[in-house]
């Protein structure tokens, strides 16, 4: 796979499309002004170097910059523009060390763009990695956690410029952030997972920023559906699970919200054409969690399930999916770390309250 070495203003479009793809469940929220913000910063501050962890000096201080909370809230109540610098400065004060590079908590949706903006404003390189390889609902559901890297010290700022810092174990930090979100306006821009480049070599999902750009370029150059399916297949190993018409969108079963999951379960049914057409049922809660084809579980979180709008040739988020839509259902395999026992325990189906083994999990 080709590596991206720097990000310029010309990459803003691809960044946005790629970011939407890896945030498949919420794709379609209007992130265009974040693209404008990214383009403006890159024009003003110049290109941002994209550096693999192993190519940084081993003791380089790194930290993730990203938003926790509701993406809709971020869109409706956007940042003023200087929050990334503020959060980074607060974290530097907390650590008493200068940051040498910025990384992504998860290179998806807004959180693929904000670290680049922060890196540009701070005149730092961005590490070509992230902690999820997609979007997951909890800030603790990262490869960093799997590798044992601490989530805190963490600093955060809200839409109304509240300043917070947290020092706690990852699960406690998760709960504290959720509590703060309730009064902070729905989102917090966080500086978290302070670590060194050496630890990122084994604790991060490498190549995530390059992957976002490559996928974005595939989608930007899309001429037709086949072109997209082929491109995604070669760039990220995407598999076509099936496609047809959405015949059902609604609440899923009697299951209430899991205590640690900030949303209610939803089900989407896609039926293939013809009397023998397969029934593809997608179970969702924040994320598209699993796909069941004719009763057979074919894939599950942390693998990425995407709905591709056949007409608009765009990735379609859950909230924009309606009965009657024509979609393709794709699966992108998660990073290898997620298929380890520790990875599945943290982000597998059972972490979402689904009493089922991941298809790649061996039968005991």
């Amino acid at each position, binding site marked *: 796979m080709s590596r991206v070495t720097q990000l310029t203003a010309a990459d803003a479009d691809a960044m946005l499309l790629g970011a939407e793809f890896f945030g498949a469940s919420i794709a379609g929220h209007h992130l265009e002004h974040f693209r404008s913000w990214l383009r403006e910063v890159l024009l003003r501050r110049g290109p941002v170097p994209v550096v693999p962890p192993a190519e940084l000096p081993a003791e380089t201080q790194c930290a993730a910059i990203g938003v926790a909370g509701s993406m809709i809230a971020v869109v409706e109540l956007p940042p003023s523009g200087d929050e990334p610098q503020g959060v980074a400065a607060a974290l530097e004060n907390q650590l008493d060390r200068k940051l040498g590079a910025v990384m992504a908590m998860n290179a998806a949706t807004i959180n693929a763009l904000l670290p680049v903006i922060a890196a540009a404003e701070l005149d730092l390189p961005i590490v070509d990695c992230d902690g999820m390889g997609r979007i997951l609902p909890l800030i603790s559901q990262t490869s960093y956690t799997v590798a044992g890297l601490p989530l805190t010290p963490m600093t955060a700022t809200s839409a109304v410029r509240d300043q917070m810092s947290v020092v706690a174990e990852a699960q406690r930090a998760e709960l504290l952030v959720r509590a703060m979100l309730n009064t902070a306006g729905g989102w917090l821009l966080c500086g978290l997972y302070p670590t060194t480049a050496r630890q990122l070599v084994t604790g991060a999902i490498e190549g995530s920023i390059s992957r976002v750009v490559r996928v974005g370029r595939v989608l930007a150059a899309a001429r037709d559906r086949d072109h997209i399916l082929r491109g995604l297949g070669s760039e990220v190993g995407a598999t076509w699970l099936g496609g047809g018409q959405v*015949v*059902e969108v*609604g*609440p*899923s*079963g*009697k*299951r209430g919200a899991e205590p640690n999951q900030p949303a209610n*379960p939803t*089900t989407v*049914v896609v*039926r293939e054409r013809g009397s*023998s057409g397969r*029934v593809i*049922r997608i*179970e969702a809660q924040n994320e598209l969690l*699993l796909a*069941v084809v*004719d*009763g*057979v*579980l074919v894939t599950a979180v942390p693998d990425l399930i995407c709905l591709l709008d056949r007409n608009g040739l765009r990735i379609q988020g859950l909230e924009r999916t309606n009965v009657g839509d024509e979609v393709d259902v794709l699966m992108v395999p998660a990073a290898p770390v997620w298929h380890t026992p520790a990875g599945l325990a943290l982000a597998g189906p059972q972490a979402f*309250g*689904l*009493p*089922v083994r991941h298809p790649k999990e061996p*039968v005991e």
Partner: protein
Amino acid sequence: MSRTPSLDALTVDALVRYGPLATATPLIEEHFDRPVPHVALVSELDDIRGCAAHTAVVLHPVLTHGVWAVESALRLSWERAASCVVTPGLPGIGESTAQLAKRLRMPVFVVPDDSARCALDLAAAVANPESVRAKVIAQCAMLFGERSTARGILGVINTEVPGVEVALVAEDGAVLAGRTAAATAGGDQVRVEVAGPDGKPWARMVASLVQGGHVRETVRSILRLARAPLVASVARERLEVVHRSARAGAALDVLLGAEARGEQSLLGPSGLEAEAVTELGWQPADLPIAVFLRAATEAGPDVPTVTPGVMSAWQQVFGDRPLVPRAAGWASWWSGTSCSPEEVRDRLRRGLSRMRSPIALVGGVGTVGEQPGSLRTSLVQAELASAGARGQSVGHVELFTELGERLVLACLPLAELARSAEVALAELLAASDRETLVETLRAVLDSGGSTGQAATRLRVHRNTVLGRLERIRGYGIDPDSADGRLALHLAAYALSTHGPAPAR
């Protein structure tokens, strides 16, 4: 745990009709014929992998996190050849799940209450199938009392008794009611004889079973229960036929009487006749062509005795077309405006070949009526033609217009003539080859005394005919005598068509 279904197992259908699944909502109404020897309450999807074939898989509420879990359970149950899946109700179970159930041919039931309780009830029913079967018998007995036809009574068994198809089969193998497949299917069957209202063997009920074992005794009990209402229904049907035929005969007498008096419009829409026509549901035929059926031989039961059977057989072939009993047989008619006598003859021939009449029949067809509604003449012709058809093969239909001079013979009391001939030609008839001698005598007389023509007709050598004539003369009979030739010719004709059985 047994891996093969018990012969005594209840079916899904039985559990739906008389068991715990009666209150469950089926997503599909198919594939209910599967036996259910086992029940499993599963709280994890992996539990299904350990279920035996033909298990009723009941999903515990803790398993049903979403419709996806139900569909996954459905798929796993299909892989284990389960008999059905029972799930607690939850939002989202609907058309898509039903479609999957249909594709996998797997009955799925949604229970409104606790599925664990349903599993217990199912296990109890499966362990004690006799209680369910007792309910089946009671239900059938109750419904038999509400049905008045053989079709209705057989229908009760076919719809209420799971895994069973039953037919009512006549002595000759014809299916009178129920499902033909039951009579023709091989495999496990239960048969129960049914006597008619007169106490004589009439038919049998044949039940084809999906499974045997104790089900056989249950089915046998139900069939025995069905016997009495079946006999009552048959008696009722026969009474109705007798009543209807009597009314039809009276109405036809009125119509023909009116025509004989020269009154207009015998089958037309006016006056008393019109009322009779309307009452019987006849379609007034303009320019009618009469037909007449009669027994193929004079011997045998009289017309009133066999009328119910003949009319029943007629209705099965000709539907509502009227058939009215007369002294010598049964009368009917077609419309001469829509077909010719020849076409009526052909239809009648085809119909007679298919009719399951209690006696062998022949028929006659008259000419087209002279004026609208004029039936009398055509009916007389048809009756004569039917008499002429006697002596021919069973089911033969004679056209009056083709009867010619045989019309005279048709009017003769041939049975009486034959009896006289038996006395007059007693010596000849005592011969061991009397049939051959009578045929030879008739052939020679039919040929005007030509022994050559008679030999050709009999397909023997002329010398053989000459030898037989010598023997006939030896009995004191002279075919050449001008005085006795007419009487001798009639006697030979009567004996050859109505004579005694050949000597043995």
